[in-house]
Every structure is written in C-alpha cells, then in structure tokens.
C-alpha cells in the first residue's frame, strides 16, 4: 500500500520544478511584496505618509467616538402568526422539482424566508440524500433574473400587464390562432398537474401534449417498449447488485436518478470489517466521468464502440465467442462478463447510450444475467424522463410548416438545448400564439409573445410522483416574491374552471386519501406511498432484438467527440446559480467554464504537450491560460480551452453541455467581460436512429494558438515538506489486500508513529505540549472514503449553511476560492487511465493544532469540546495560521466578498459575480446564525458550531444527555452515500464511536505522524480490483527479494 504513489497534478507526478516551488510557497498567489528591500525611506509609503495616515486614523477614530448612537428600530409583528417565533426556524416538508427530477426535501424557514434545504429522511427513495443542485436550489429562489410579472410582446416590446389583462388577451387570441394547439412541457410527473392538463384538454380537445427533455432517454424508453412492452424507465436496485457494469452511464452524477443510485451504490461499498466484501463496479467509458472515476476497474473505448461492446458483452455472458470487439477491449469485455456471470441474479448492466438498438441489446444482457426482477425493478417505474426525441422533432417540423397555431411552453427550453435550435426558433416565429410559463427569460421565453412566469418551487403548491405509487408533495415556504402565477392556475382558469390550483390539489388528494385530515398529514410528512420492497420482473421478450443487433452503430475511426453533463450544471439548469458555477467539477476540478477534455496522448499529438516532460507539464499546468482549440463537428464550429484529463480515451474528446447560456437567464451565465460563461455544445449533437446522439464522430480539432484562462482549483492546496506530503494525506488499498492482511493500514500507521513509540503511546508521548482532557463532549467526524463518490453535495451544503462567499472566476484564478470544504482528487497508477480517489477535506480540528500556536492574537484556539475555534472579530489577518496548516483548509478573505464591511467602495474592484451575491434579494439566503465575514480575516470549517450549539441547547431544555440526532452537520446531512458520521466521541454509544470501533482496520488520520491529532478520521478507500492486487503482490515480492 505504502508503495502506491498518489498524485494530484502532473507536476506532482513528475516532481517538477514548479511543483517543488509551489509546495514550498505558503500562498500560491503572487503576493504584493514589491520593493520590500528598498528600505523604509525609499518605500512607496514613506514616513511622512505614515504619519499622515496615523493622524487621519486618530482623527477618524475621534470623530467616530463622538458620534451619536445610531437609532435602530425593533419592529414587531402587527399580528404575530401563531407558528412563527422570530429567531426560531420552521421546517416544511416539500419537494425539489426541476424538470422531471423530484427530490423530497425539508426547507428551513427562518422568519418567513427559506434559507436552506435538506433531504427528507422519510423518503424511501433518497432517504435524506441530496445533490449539489438540490442544495443550491434555494439560491435560485432569490435569483434577481427571475421574471417578475407577466408580459405581452417579444423582446424590447414586452410590456408588463396584469394577470387579468393577459388572461383576456390570450382568451381573445386563441380562437384566431388557427392550426393545432400544442402544450410543450419538460417531463411532468405530477399526477394533479396531469389531471389539470386533462381538464384543459376537455376544453381544447385537439390539444397535443409533447414532452421534451434537454437530455432525453428516448433510446431507453423505446427499447423498453420493445423488450418489456412499457415505454418507461424501470427502477434500479444497485444495492442488490454485487457486480455492476456500466457502459458509459454516469449514474452517480447525472444518469436517471443519481441521488437514489448513489445511496444504493454506497450500500455495496460499506465494508463489514469482520467479513470484508463489497460490490464490484466495472466501467467502460470514453471521457472521464464521476462514475468512471469511482469504478473498481475502468476501461476506455471510443464512443462509437458502445454498441459493439454491448453486443460483445452479450455474447460473452451467453458463453459465445466475442466477435464485435478485439484486442485489449475484448479481454476487458470478457473480464466484465466473467464478473457478471459470477453473480448471476445479483448483477446489473446499465448503459448511457441514447441509441434504441444498443439499449435493446443491454436489455438482452440484463435478461441473460438475471437482472430483471432482481436489480431491475418494474414494480414501480421511474418517472423522471418521458420525452421522445422523434415526437419533438416532428413538432419542430410542424411548426416550420406553419401548422401549429398555439404553443404553450412549460419548463422546456428547446431554443437553447435542442441541437437544431435555429430550426426551432424559425418554427416558433411562425406560431401565432406562443405562451411561455417559464420562470426566467430564457432562450425560448424571449421569443414568446405571452409570458406568465411560474413560481419557484419553494413558493408553489403541488405534488410529484418520482416513482409510480410514491408521491412527494410541494407546499409553499414563502409568499411569492414577485407577480408570478403557477402554470396550473392559468390552465385551470382557461379551462373555465372556477377553482384555483390549491383547491384543486386539495380536492384531488382529499378524495384520494379520504379527507382533509389525511391530506394535512401527508403534507406535513411530505410524502406518501411506499416503494415496493421486493423487485418485480418485467415481462421480457426478445422483441426487435435481431433487428437491433444487426443495426448496432458501426465503429468509427478518427477523432470522436462526446458531449456530457456536469454534475452541477446538468443540461444548463445550474448555469445561472453562482454556487454551482463555483463548485469545482469533481473530475476536472475546474470552475466557471466548460472546456475540451482531452487525453494526455491527444495532448501530445494535438498540442505537442508531453506531460512526462517536466517543463511542458509545468507550462500547461501552472499558469491558468490554457490553449484554445477549434472543434469542428456536424458542420458546427466552436472554440474551447483544453484541459488534459487522464482517464479519457486517446482518440476521444469531451465537452460539457449546459454552458454558453443567454445573459438574461442570470448574471452568473456571463463572465467578468460580459461574455457568456463557456460555449453551448448542444448544436454539435445530431439525430441518429431517431434519437439525439451526443456521440459525434468525424471531429476535426485545430490548435488556434490562442489561450484562455480556466479557473482550475486542483493545484491550489499543495502540501509537501520533509515532515509529510500529499501521499500520506490519504490511504488506499485493494479488497484483496485487505482480506490478505486486514491490519495493513494499522501496520502502516504503527510504522509511521514508530519514532514516538507506536500508536499506543503516540498521543501522550510525542508532544512537548501537555494534553488537555475534554470532560463533557468531544466532537469527532469520520469520513468513509470508500463510499464517498465525490459528488459535491456537501460542498454546496456547506456553502449554503455557513454563508461561504462566492468569489467569481477572476478570484478563483488568483487562488482566492473560499470553500470551507473541498473534495481533493487523487490519481494513482497508469497515467493514461489512473485510479481516482476523492477525499473531502475540511478543517481537521486538530487537538494539537499547528495554527493555534502561531496566532499572535489568539484568534484561533481550542475549545474544551475539541473544536478548533476561529474568532473573526479577534483576527487581524496575519495569515500565519493558514501558512502553518498542514491541510491548507484555512481561507483568507482577501476582499469584502459578502458585504460585511461598512465601507461601500470596499467591493469596487470585485467582479460582478460578487455583486450579484450582494444585492438585497440574494442576501435573503444568508444564514442569520452565522457571522458574515469581513475583509482581512481568516475563516474555515467550524464543524457547523451553530448547529452544535443549537443541538446542545435542545438537549439542555429537555434536560437530557445529547443524542446523535441533535447534531447533524450540514455536510453529513447532505450526503446521499452517508459517508460522513459526526458526533460525540466521548459517548461510547454514539454513531461516531461505533463507526470508529467497527472499522478500526481501515481507520486513519490524515498526516497522523505530524502529531497534530486531528478530530476528523478517515476510512481508507478499498478498491475491488484484481489486477491491482496481482500487481501489488508482485511488487511486494520483488521488494522482499530486493531486500
């Protein structure tokens, strides 16, 4: 294990000069210390100036002192609502809804405004898990770019009107529109809304309902229709699978229902120390993805080979000869088939392709390995995506033919995300009555004459049926901020119904559940309807199989391009959200941009960058400007900067969709130069086999010779000294090694602490400082690196809970990112297709903290509960502590990012992104229990001390000892994989004590040998990879022989 080399950057791999230099530097940015040696008199600020300033400040202080007390008002309610106590949060169960995604959540409402959302533990699907996008959704509520009133007119002609006026105008326009009437929506899985649409249909019988998904699952839906007779997506049971083979399905990040899958997947990764077993995940992919990075074995291939691999895998699991692929890939497919065969009935194959034929073959594989009814569940179908590409393509044709008279648009935004957006736009211009209900002035809404903006989901009523038979409810958590109206209300009104949507919903559910009391109960709980315990098989037939296997797309040659979605931005839904834009992508660690992802091999070929050569790796890596490449595909041309990401196929490049959005969607979609953030890659896609394909062959790339800066956070926090370096920050081993020598990690730790008498004596003997007891509570955290998949939900949760500033791209480029919790990415092994480990790293709350000793003003010190406390009002900003922190988790407020200072022009030099987060509307999202930090102070993870204090107070009020449920830190709450455990270590029955005891063999502390005594422990990553075991065993043998 210890001989396994981990690296974060190419410079680290090569131990390049720039890397050595940056590891030495305390701060990565160039500090403004010019002319430091010129002597005081020659300095830019000579003595006289100093005296001037001194005099001024004294005078200013005197003036300030003589000022009158500013009069502050305390204005109580006129009539206090019974359930609101100022200063005490109320929690409402509701549902996050974005297109077809529905996640049960609890919204924390402080004094009438939602400030944080958390997963609803009662949900059988997510069990309290969330994603980065769910966590960030509360910020969208306070987005200044939301439409604030209904309008009539296109573009600059748009005039504000009242609801009555627009209702009247539309009522008058509808009969004259002629042609057909179409309701275009993104996937709707709300049963009551579908009922509303039915009522609307009763009034307009010719109404056609077309569902459009920006990234559709048409291929799967149609394949399932052929194989199972249902045009639907099944539920998956990754928790039942011992072997998982994914053909490019990014199921932990963006595929179908990632939160649910992340939870199920993590179950297979939880290791019982007494009987270490875990699931095996084999991933075939073309462009490095989050799911691929988590795989036990990752194999690379061309995107066009997906079909061939599926066919080969089918042959192999059926015991037939593999003919469609050859060479290394063939061997890999056979390995996967062997692993699947070993666990028949406990195996699962998923595929990210949108090709119907490929998906039919995948259905056949799943049938052959007995997945149907075990790991694939047809008892409750997944309702998150229903759009069929060909139906929408037909609508676009009809619009262009002028046969569509009226178009109602709910949620869909094809003018941005349809690959032939121009054609859609021309078609839309021919539609006489175009009505948009979208809540933002997005690319499609801008072209609609009538706009009636929808509420944000936190202001709405509603329901959702994420899985058939399981319902999640939406209730408003705040009075609508703007003059908006739910689209269901409009449709009901136009159907001639006298009831509004709230009453409609109440009646609908009242009837279904049997009374208002039952309705109130489900509303309070947020959910109703169980998810079936036992998976049920679908009626599989080999229908259309022969045809499908014949029509598997041919393997192409030359460079190929794959479009993919980022976990934060998705298909553009997260693009206007500053939290999501600034969250580093887990795979590339870049913020605020999309880029061309290429392999190291391609870098050498295309740009002549050889990463194994020190100087060239440094030139690429150290400075933010990256080479810009022109990409030509499907007769479209775009230019993007290049990032070299190992784990990408040599002949394949990748581009994320969801970028290059219109400025009207939100300020975060344009950069500091008023240019769009990133480039829209949707136009590069094409329709193939009746479905939109994001795999594009025949791509030509040309180096433009230009450069463009990319805000990459990967190398921001390097730590390498004689006392310890990155390698020891994190530990990893294979399952075989763990089985062979269960105490390997323990031995390793023993070895590291040997100079101080080994682990047993380490704590007491290895320090010149005394040890202090923690008489009551001692907080501790444990993070299971094996179940962490790096998704970043915790990063955004932390940002939302702790008022962590958004600094904007120019500041990230200057290493000024403020995240209290970051997820480090480590590579190991083959430099072209490395293994990846993600490690969430926050303040380790060291009991012997190096930062505390060096603070000249004792602004950071230790509490009797083991917290490393940071006191902002005492901090004078020397940054000695950040310098001395071995984990580099302390953040310095270089500027007044959050508007905490009283001097208004302190923010003048900052980018618009920062200002965006500082208007009165956006500041409503701030957590009033956490200080907004001002310029010039250090900040860092506080273990969510405001929650700890609240939990303790709750226990004190109830006169009982603290229990685990009282204190749940934001990151632990957000995690879908439940990899973070937090609690009182002094209590032997607490979850944290149990986790540490039960996993003593995998437990380690980061950089333990430094004797900083962290209160955060990690559990080593275990990889279920045979090859590595063999290689490691071989290596060890060689080592011994050598010795």
């Amino acid at each position: 294990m210890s001989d396994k080399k981990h690296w974060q950057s190419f410079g680290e791999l090569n131990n390049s000069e720039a890397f050595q230099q940056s590891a030495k530097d305390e701060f990565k940015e160039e500090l403004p210390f010019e002319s430091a040696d010129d002597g005081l008199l020659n300095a830019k600020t000579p003595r006289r100036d100093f005296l001037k300033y001194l005099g001024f400040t004294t005078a200013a202080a005197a003036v300030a002192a003589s000022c009158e007390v500013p009069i502050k008002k305390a204005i109580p309610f006129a009539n206090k609502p019974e359930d609101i106590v100022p200063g005490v949060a109320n929690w409402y169960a509701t549902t996050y809804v974005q297109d077809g995604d529905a996640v049960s959540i609890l919204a924390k409402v402080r004094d009438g405004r939602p400030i944080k959302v958390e997963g609803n533990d009662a949900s059988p699907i997510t069990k309290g898990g969330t994603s980065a996008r769910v966590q960030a959704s509360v910020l969208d509520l306070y987005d200044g770019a939301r439409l604030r009133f209904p309008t009539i007119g296109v573009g600059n002609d748009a005039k504000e009107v009242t609801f009555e006026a627009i209702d009247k105008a539309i009522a008058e326009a509808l009969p004259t529109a002629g042609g057909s009437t179409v309701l275009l929506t993104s996937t709707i899985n709300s049963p009551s809304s579908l009922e509303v649409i039915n009522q609307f249909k009763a009034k307009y019988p010719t109404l056609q309902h077309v569902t459009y998904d920006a990234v559709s699952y048409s291929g799967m839906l149609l394949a399932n229709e052929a194989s199972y007779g249902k045009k639907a997506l099944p539920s998956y049971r990754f928790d039942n699978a011992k072997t998982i083979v994914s053909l490019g399905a990014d199921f932990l990040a963006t595929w179908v229902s990632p939160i649910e899958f992340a939870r199920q997947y993590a179950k297979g990764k939880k290791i019982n120390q007494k009987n270490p077993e875990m699931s095996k995940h084999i991933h075939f992919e073309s462009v490095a993805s989050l799911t691929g990075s988590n795989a036990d074995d990752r194999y690379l291939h061309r995107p066009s080979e997906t079909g061939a691999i599926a066919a080969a895998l089918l042959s192999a699991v059926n015991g037939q000869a593999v003919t469609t692929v050859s060479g290394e890939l063939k061997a890999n497919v056979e390995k996967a088939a062997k692993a699947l065969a070993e666990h028949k009935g406990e195996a699962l194959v998923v595929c990210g392709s949108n090709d119907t034929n490929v998906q039919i073959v995948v259905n056949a594989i799943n049938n052959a390995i007995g997945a149907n009814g075990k790991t694939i569940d047809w008892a409750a179908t997944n309702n998150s995506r229903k759009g069929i590409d060909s139906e929408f393509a037909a609508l676009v044709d009809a619009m262009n033919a002028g046969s569509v008279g009226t178009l109602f648009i709910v949620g869909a935004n094809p003018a941005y995300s349809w690959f032939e957006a121009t054609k859609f736009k021309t078609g839309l211009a021919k539609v006489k009555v175009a009505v948009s209900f979208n809540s933002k002035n997005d690319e499609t809404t801008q072209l609609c004459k009538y706009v009636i903006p929808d509420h944000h989901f936190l202001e709405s009523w509603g329901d959702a049926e994420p899985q058939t038979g399981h319902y999640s409810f939406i209730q408003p958590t705040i009075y609508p901020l703007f003059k908006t109206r739910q689209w269901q209300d409009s449709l009901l009104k136009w159907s001639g119904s006298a009831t509004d949507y709230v009453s409609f919903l109440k009646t609908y559910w009242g009837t279904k559940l049997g009374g208002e009391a039952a309705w109130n109960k489900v509303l309070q709980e947020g959910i109703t309807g169980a998810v079936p315990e036992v998976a049920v098989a679908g009626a599989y037939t080999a229908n259309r199989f022969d045809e499908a296997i014949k029509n598997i797309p041919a393997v192409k040659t030359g460079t190929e391009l794959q479009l993919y979605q980022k976990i934060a931005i998705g298909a553009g839904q997260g693009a206007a959200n500053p939290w999501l834009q600034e969250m580093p992508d887990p795979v590339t660690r870049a913020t605020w941009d999309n880029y061309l992802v290429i392999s190291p091999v391609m870098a050498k070929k295309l740009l002549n960058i050889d990463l194994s050569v020190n100087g060239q790796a440094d030139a690429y890596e150290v400075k933010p400007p990256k080479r810009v490449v022109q990409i030509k595909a499907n007769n479209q041309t775009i230019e993007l900067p290049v990032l070299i990401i190992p784990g990408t196929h040599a002949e394949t490049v990748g581009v994320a969709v969801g970028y290059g959005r219109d400025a009207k969607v939100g300020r975060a979609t344009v950069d500091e130069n008023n240019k769009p953030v990133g480039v829209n890659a949707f136009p590069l896609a094409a329709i193939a086999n009746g479905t939109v394909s994001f795999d594009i062959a025949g791509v030509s790339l040309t180096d433009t010779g230009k450069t463009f800066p990319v805000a990459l956070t990967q190398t921001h926090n390097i730590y390498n000294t004689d006392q310890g370096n990155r390698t020891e920050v994190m530990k990893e081993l294979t399952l075989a090694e763990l089985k062979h020598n269960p105490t390997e990690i323990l031995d390793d730790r023993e070895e590291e602490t040997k100079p101080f008498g080994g682990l047993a004596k380490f704590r007491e003997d290895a320090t010149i400082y005394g040890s202090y007891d923690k008489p009551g509570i001692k907080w501790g955290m444990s993070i299971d690196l094996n179940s962490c998949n790096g998704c970043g939900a915790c990063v955004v949760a932390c940002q939302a809970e702790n008022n962590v500033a958004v600094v904007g791209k120019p500041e990230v480029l200057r290493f000024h990112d403020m995240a209290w919790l970051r997820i480090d990415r480590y590579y190991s092994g083959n430099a072209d297709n490395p293994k990846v480990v993600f490690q969430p790293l926050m303040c380790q709350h060291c009991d012997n903290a190096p930062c505390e000793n060096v603070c000249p003003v004792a602004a950071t010190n230790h509490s009797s509960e083991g917290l490393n406390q940071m006191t902002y009002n005492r901090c004078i900003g020397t940054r000695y502590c950040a310098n001395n922190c071995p984990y580099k988790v302390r953040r310095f407020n270089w500027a007044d990012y959050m508007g905490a200072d009283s001097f208004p022009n302190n923010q003048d030099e900052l980018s618009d992104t920062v200002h965006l987060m500082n208007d009165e509307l956006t500041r409503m999202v701030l957590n009033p229990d956490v200080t907004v930090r001002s310029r010039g102070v250090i900040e860092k993870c506080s273990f969510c001390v405001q929650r700890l204090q609240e939990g303790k107070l709750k226990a004190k009020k109830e006169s009982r000892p603290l229990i685990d449920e009282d204190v749940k830190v934001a990151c632990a709450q957000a995690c879908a994989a439940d990899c973070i455990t937090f609690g009182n270590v002094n209590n032997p029955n607490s979850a944290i004590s149990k986790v540490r005891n039960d996993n003593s063999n995998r437990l380690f502390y980061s950089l333990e040998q430094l004797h900083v005594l962290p209160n955060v422990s990690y559990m080593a990553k275990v990889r279920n990879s045979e090859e590595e075991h063999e290689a490691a065993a071989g290596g060890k043998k060689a080592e011994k022989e050598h010795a």
Partner: protein
Amino acid sequence: MTHRRIAKTIILSTILLLGLSFISNTASAQDGKALFNANCASCHKIDKELTGPALLGVEDRWGGDRKKLHAWIKNSGSFLKTGDKYANDLFAKYKSSMTSFDGVLDEKQIDAILDYIKNWKPTGPVEGGGTTGAKPEESDNSLLFGILTLILAVVALTLLQVNSNLKKLSDDKSGIASPEPVAFWKNKSYIAMFVVVLFIIGGYLTTKGAIGLGRNKEYQPKQPIYYSHKVHAGTNQINCLYCHNGAEQGKHANIPSVNICMNCHKAINEYKGEKIVDAEGNEVNGTAQIQELYKYAGFDPKKPNEWDASKATPIQWVKIHNLPDHVYFNHSQHVVAGKQQCQTCHGEITAMGEVKQFADLSMGWCINCHRTTQVQFKENGFYSIYEKFHNELKSGKLDSTKGITVEKIGGTECQKCHY
C-alpha cells in the same frame, strides 16, 4: 455629569436591592394574589370586565357554592354539560370557553384565589411605587475631594517654590553661586512633570473612552408610545413571559405584537393609576398613551366589536439592547437552561418607566457572569455526561459551594458566542 451618574447608579442599585427583596417576598408567599396574577389576570380583573367577567362577588353570583366553582374553573366545558343555568348564561354572554385549569390549580389554590378576591379592597395602586420614594440619603463627596486635592496641590507647589527661594537665599548668603531662578513655567522639571501627568490622565481617558465605544449603558431612548414597564410588570404584575414569550423559545425574547397588547387593552382604555412621570420629569398621560396604541391597532373604543385586527400597523419601537453582529446571544439558553431571572441582565425592570439599558452589554460583563454563575449541574440531565466533575464534586475535590460554573464547562470559550 459624572457625579450625577454615580448618584444614579447608587440609587438604582438600592432600588434593585429593595425590589429584589420585594419580589422574593411575593414569590415565597404563594398566596391567592400571586396565583391570581399568574393564572387569571390575563383574562380577568377583579373590578372590571376584561375578556372574562369582573370577578368581584363571584362567589355570591355562584350561590356561594365553591364545589361548583371548582368544577367550573377546572374544566368549564364539562361543567357546561351539567346544564347549570348560570354557567350556560355566562357562556352565552362571553361566547368563549374559559381556559381549563385542571392539573394547573388544585382546589386549595383555587380557594386561595377566591379568598383573595373576597377580601380584595379597591385600594389603588401603591405597591411598587413605594420604592421610588425611598431615596437614599447619600451625598456625593467627589467634588469636595477634588477641591481639596487642588488646594493641597497649590499649597505643595507654593511650598516647593518657597523652599527653592529659601535655598537660593541661604546659598547666596553662604556665597555659593547659583543660577538665576527660572520661572516655574519655564522650569524644565516642572514642564516634564506636567507632561507626564497630562499623558497619564489623557491616556487613561482615551483608553476609557475607547473601551466605552459602542457601549450604551443607561441608554433610554424616547419611544413612539410611552410604555411603562413599571405600570405593567410592576404595579399590575404581568408576567414578563406573557408579552416576551420568545424568551423561552429562541434567541429573541420578542417585543410583543399589537394584538398581544390589545388582548388586555380592548377592555382597558383608560389609565387610573398613580401619576406617571417620565425621565425629564414631565407628567405622562397614561390614557393618551393607550389612545396612541389604538391608533396603531386601528381600534375604536366606542365600537369594540367592529375591530379588525388585520388592519393593525406595527409599532416602530426603538431598539435599546444592541449586540454587535458577531455575537450570538440566545434568550432561551439563559432563561430555560440557565434558569436566569430577566432582572439579572435587564435590571429592575418593574421599576422602570421607559426602559433603560441596565448593563453595558460588554464582553467583560458577560464573561464575569459566566465565571461566577453556576449551571444547573445536578438538576439538568444534560450535564450527566460530565462524569469527571460529578465524581470530583462528590469526593470534595471540587468546591461544592462554588459548584460548576459556566466557565468550568467551557462557557468562556470564543465559539460559545462568536460563530
């Protein structure tokens, strides 16, 4: 200015002491009056109709049957079902059922209340006011000391001057050459001494001023309505938590909303109590202040039944206790978990007209209290986890009279209040 402030402090602390002893007396008595004030006073007055009927002569009206009354007070709803005519008439008249006191008051306590009502005499409000009259006969001597110091300093200076003159004379006599005398304002040692003294005094005043920056002890702004805590919490003994109910629930104690004021002031529309005098010595017309409230509430006392609470507008009170943004303070922590009295931090509020800031709310003031105040160490189950301290208390290693202070369990650490 200074001596007036000192005098005020002395007066105030005397009042506090007297007030405290007064409060503890009433609390320990547990008599009918206290019970009445705690349980009945929010809906009933003795001589006047409020939400419920005036209670004077209640026993006679019920035919002197205390058993009936017990049943009614304990659970009026179930008593109505017995079909008692008087009870049903009462219910029909007031159209709302009385709060059930079953399990809150036992029969003995109800009897105590009834006795108190029976023996009640309309005396007029005198209690509470008594303390204001008892001004302590203390005079301030600092001016005298100052004058004395000055005189002595002048005498000392003169003596020094005389001494040097005499020395010069004797030197002249004995023929020792001595320099020409320097006038004392040109004398370098005098100047140096003067500068040092000035520096010390100036430094002391600057430091003191700087420490006091942003602190507003004694802050007593003018409020939109002259609301007297003395009348409400003092004379009429309304429980603090009736209005400031947030103090037990969360960080804010809460200023009551208009509808809470109107709970009582729907019926109480004139002030008949003792003369109210504000801080400047002007007389305040209590009834006029109630009319002010009605303006905010949109209430017309002539048409009480037509009042629409939803038309009320909030009162913009001036905030007195201002903590900096980086301080987290939670009322419920102190009131519920710490079992602190409101007066500990807010002073003798029952004797204040308009509220005045009692403590300087400085960090030193907080910390000093945390250093000496004991937590509910044995009473509160939360602290059972501090096994070590429990053992040390038992074994006598820790002084049980000092007990476990807030500081001992980490209550003076930074992140208890700053996060």
